[in-house]
């Protein structure tokens, strides 16, 4: 691998991301899967970096899942998105940041479509007016939340308490980065680093001391694929794709996986359990899995937040081996203690995949 | 002596083995045929004609015929007359086989008596005849062209020993008898030689070595005979009654096949006949070499030779002893083991059924690629007012002949059964075919009782004769190429010519009818690649165009498409020509 060659490509795909004043929209599903992630994003942006991030309780889904599942027509999804933009306009913001990759892709796709077909935009404005008497300005800039963490990666590194370095060996951790498909595969120029070698997560990993692994199936989908998972008959196809990725990364012995999409960490995390049950195979060391994180969780860990406050106890694959490697202190007893200090009860442990 | 006893016992054992190897019913058939007066007479006639007089060879080339019959008949007569002599002079010794041969050595006789002189003359006459044959044989070794043979067989080592000992026998006999002539008597040849010899060698002591040399040469010849091509002498005598009994090759190596292989005299006539012969590299793939390799059990070469052949059947047609080169090869092919064995039971013939008119036209696979033929045929049938059904207008099941030629009898049989079903269900009483390849298997392997199987050339001839088609004779010069499967395969030679003569002037190719040269496109060859066939096609074309015809006519879709590729003038099927010249 010629690193300079990649750098040359990265240089071609850089974005001028505004520094401040963002209107933030959450993902539909992330709070259920990784409840600490979005909380940590706001925590870092607002409290650590003191930036202006606004969010509104009245925003809804962007319609992306339904759109990609072919259950609603394009006009519907566009009207939903128009309403989101109206909320942003009403709040007085011009920069729009989405937590969800599908949303990000959805917004970009819709804005590009409106550029190509202005009559469609006019039609949507009319529909939005008829539906809820709202008007909107198109955002000046649409970013994905990982773009911002990427932008702030060096600021975070400056404040870091831990680095992505194996404390025992002093070697950088081997990190698999996985980019959500809708981040830049549809519009390469809209993603940091482009579509072939996206840099957004690489940049974070590098800034925080880790080593990115470039394995053959790096580009491959996590396996979610909307319809492929939602319909049970297709689920074998979904897990086959995840399996393919793990088989491909296995020889590199990665320490962790970092992702920037709502679905990817979920499927790469949970399917490791299902694969273990189906094939009796695990991919981490000593019968554990490879822990999968969102970039916010990794930023939180690096900044020294308590793993259990980051919601890492909701991961299927045990994170403890990684915490140990990084030298992060944690209290195993607190793992299943709720915020109200009540015992959440330890879940039943799976048969094949080793968990703590 | 030893040689004679050896060869007789060997032949006897071989005879019994071959007969035992025949399948039960064939064996019965054979024995019955032996005692049936008609076949018996035919057997005897054939043995005399073929083995002694070599009638077939006489027809081919007078010198070649004379050479063979002089040796065979002369020797035979020497033996017969010798025996008569012995019988007359020393009847008590007639049981000793060797006695007649060395009669002159044992018995001193006088030519003074009329009887003696007569026998002496006969013996000398036949000896001279044999000697002239031997002389011709020697000459043939050097100049085979004179005998109408461009190329001859490359003899093996043992063949050479046999050859030289055969050559040696009769000159030595002459020498020996020459020495003894003054004691035992002789006639014009031996006596005069005796005088010549005595003029410088008067010692009778030379007598003994000469007789010894003669007996040695004869002994060697007889001992090596079973291992050389001269085995054909006894084997042919067996082959003739077997063939006359109507027995067919049923096993690649046993029974009739074995008899044929041993009956091959290695004469090499098949080398010139073989259409592959245009390329020197193929000379060793001719029937004579196949027979030699089968005798040696060289499996690799047997496979190579038998797979390469175009199965045009020309070697069979011209073989003086009747070795069936094509059938022998198909039999060898049938020995191959395949891991994938085709099975057509899945084909539903119901979807292929044709509503039956009385005449059913089956164009065949090859005709599907030469639609001009089927179009012309349909047009002719319409013009003649024949109502017909087209069995494979939308494609059908292959007739099975190509599969049969590959030696896969079981697969071919399956196709035959499927097509039989369709034809029988149609209610047709005439099956009209355009492709000689199909025609042959339909005639030979299909059991379609009550249904007339006819090739379109025959059918067209019939229609014209009946006046259902009227022709406008033009001035175009046609040459007819006899397709292998139609001519040699089915014996149809006259009808195509008759039909063509209605359309224009007919000229003949240099080699025609049963000696017609395969177009080179034959499905018979399994291994010959496309690039290797070009020179064969060109050679066949050269043969056809010697009389400068305007159009090359043929009656086979495969010949037609093969010739079209390289021909310098139009190539057409007879059906097309007739359709065009039909009023």
């Amino acid at each position, binding site marked *: 691998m010629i690193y300079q060659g990649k750098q040359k490509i990265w240089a071609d795909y850089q974005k001028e991301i505004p520094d401040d004043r963002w209107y933030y929209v959450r993902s539909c599903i992330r709070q259920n899967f990784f409840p600490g992630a979005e909380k940590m994003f706001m925590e870092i942006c607002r409290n650590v970096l003191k930036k202006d991030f606004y969010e509104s309780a009245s925003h809804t889904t962007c319609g992306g899942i339904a759109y990609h599942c072919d259950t609603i027509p394009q006009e519907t999804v566009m009207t939903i998105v128009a309403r989101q933009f109206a909320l942003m306009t009403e709040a007085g913001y011009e920069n729009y940041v989405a937590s969800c990759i599908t949303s990000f892709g959805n917004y970009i796709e819709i804005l590009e479509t409106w550029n190509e077909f202005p009559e469609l935009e006019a039609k949507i404005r009319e529909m939005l007016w008829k539906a809820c008497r709202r008007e909107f300005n198109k955002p000046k800039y649409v970013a994905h939340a990982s773009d911002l963490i990427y932008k702030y990666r060096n600021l975070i590194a400056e404040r870091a308490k831990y680095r992505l370095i194996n404390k025992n060996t002093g070697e950088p951790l081997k990190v698999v980065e996985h980019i959500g498909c809708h981040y830049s595969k549809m519009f390469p120029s809209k993603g940091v680093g482009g579509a072939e070698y996206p840099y957004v997560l690489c940049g974070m990993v590098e800034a925080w001391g880790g080593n990115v692994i470039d394995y053959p199936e790096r580009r491959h989908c996590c396996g979610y694929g909307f319809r492929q998972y939602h319909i049970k008959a297709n689920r074998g196809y979904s897990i086959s794709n995840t399996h393919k990725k793990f088989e491909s990364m296995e020889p590199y012995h990665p320490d962790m996986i970092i992702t920037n999409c709502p679905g990817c960490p979920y499927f790469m995390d949970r399917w490791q359990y299902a694969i273990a049950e189906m094939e009796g195979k695990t991919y981490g060391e000593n019968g554990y899995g490879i822990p999968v994180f969102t970039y916010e969780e990794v930023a939180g860990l690096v900044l020294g937040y308590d793993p259990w406050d980051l919601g890492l106890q909701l991961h299927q694959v045990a994170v403890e081996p990684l915490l140990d490697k990084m030298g992060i202190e944690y209290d195993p007893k607190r793992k299943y203690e709720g915020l109200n200090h009540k015992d959440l009860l330890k879940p039943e442990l799976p048969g094949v995949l080793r968990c703590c | 002596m030893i040689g004679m006893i050896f060869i007789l016992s060997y032949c006897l054992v071989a005879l019994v083995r071959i007969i035992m190897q025949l399948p039960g019913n064939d064996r019965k058939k054979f024995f019955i045929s032996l005692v049936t007066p008609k076949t018996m007479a035919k057997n005897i006639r054939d043995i005399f004609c073929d083995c002694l007089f070599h009638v077939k060879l006489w027809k081919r080339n007078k010198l070649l015929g004379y050479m063979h019959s002089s040796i065979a008949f002369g020797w035979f007569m020497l033996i017969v007359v010798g025996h008569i002599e012995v019988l007359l002079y020393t009847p008590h010794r007639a049981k000793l086989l060797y006695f007649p041969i060395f009669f002159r050595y044992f018995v001193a006789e006088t030519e003074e008596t009329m009887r003696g002189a007569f026998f002496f003359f006969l013996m000398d006459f036949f000896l001279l005849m044999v000697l002239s044959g031997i002389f011709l044989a020697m000459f043939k070794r050097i100049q085979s062209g004179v005998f109408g043979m461009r190329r001859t067989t490359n003899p093996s080592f043992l063949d050479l020993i046999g050859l030289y000992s055969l050559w040696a026998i009769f000159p030595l006999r002459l020498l020996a008898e020459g020495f003894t002539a003054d004691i035992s008597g002789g006639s014009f040849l031996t006596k005069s030689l005796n005088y010549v010899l005595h003029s410088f060698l008067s010692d009778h002591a030379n007598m003994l070595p000469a007789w010894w040399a003669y007996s040695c040469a004869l002994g060697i010849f007889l001992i090596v005979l079973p291992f050389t091509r001269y085995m054909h002498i006894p084997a042919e005598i067996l082959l003739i009654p077997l063939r006359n009994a109507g027995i067919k090759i049923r096993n690649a190596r046993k029974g009739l096949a074995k008899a044929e292989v041993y009956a091959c005299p290695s004469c090499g006539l098949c080398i010139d006949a073989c259409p592959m012969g245009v390329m020197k590299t193929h000379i060793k793939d001719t029937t004579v070499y196949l027979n030699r390799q089968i005798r040696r059990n060289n499996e690799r070469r047997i496979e190579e030779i038998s797979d390469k052949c175009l199965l045009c059947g020309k070697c069979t047609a011209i073989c003086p002893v009747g070795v069936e080169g094509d059938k022998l090869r198909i039999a060898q092919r049938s020995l191959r083991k395949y891991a*994938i064995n*085709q099975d057509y039971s899945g084909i539903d013939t119901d979807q292929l059924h044709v509503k039956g008119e009385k005449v059913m036209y089956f164009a065949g696979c090859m005709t599907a690629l030469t639609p001009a033929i089927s179009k012309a045929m349909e047009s002719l049938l319409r013009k003649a007012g024949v109502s017909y059904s087209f069995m494979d207008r939308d494609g059908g099941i292959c007739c099975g002949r190509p*599969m049969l030629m590959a030696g896969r009898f079981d697969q071919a049989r399956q196709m035959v059964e499927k097509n039989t079903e369709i034809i029988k269900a149609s209610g047709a009483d005439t099956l009209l075919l355009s492709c000689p390849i199909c025609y042959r298997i339909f005639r030979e392997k299909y059991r379609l009782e009550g249904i007339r199987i006819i090739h379109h050339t025959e059918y067209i001839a019939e229609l014209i004769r009946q006046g259902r088609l009227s022709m406008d004779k033009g001035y175009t010069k046609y040459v007819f190429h006899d397709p292998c499967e139609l001519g040699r395969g089915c014996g149809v030679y006259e009808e195509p010519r008759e039909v063509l003569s209605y359309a224009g002037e007919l000229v003949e190719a240099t080699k025609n009818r049963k000696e017609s040269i395969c177009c080179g496109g034959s499905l018979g060859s399994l291994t010959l690649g496309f690039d290797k066939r070009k020179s064969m096609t060109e050679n066949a074309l050269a043969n056809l165009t010697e009389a400068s015809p305007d159009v090359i006519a043929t009656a086979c879709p495969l010949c037609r498409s093969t010739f079209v590729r390289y021909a310098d003038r139009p190539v057409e099927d007879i059906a097309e020509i007739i359709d065009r010249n039909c009023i």
Partner: protein
Amino acid sequence: MIDFGFKISPSSAINMDNADLSLYEKVREIEPDISKCIACGSCSATCPAGRFSGMSVRKCILDLQRGKKNEVKKMLSCCMLCGKCTMVCPRGINTRHLILSICKLYKED
């Protein structure tokens, strides 16, 4: 082991790294013409057996080149050896010999 009601399905992709080309190589030794195929499809289009089955010489050659032997067997069991494919092949491939050679060399796994 738990039955989830779905399974990891095997990849449908052709992996040339572990494709078993031994049969192809053997056939190529006997009939080098096999490598001349340009996948024009004339053979399949003209094939009378193709009407009753999935027979296609083109696909047979391709499957051998990709190490897929089972499909080949299925197709070849319907061949009638009529020779039309040989006649139409623009590359002059001796398809009949090719077919017979494969039939001879084919070994069940």
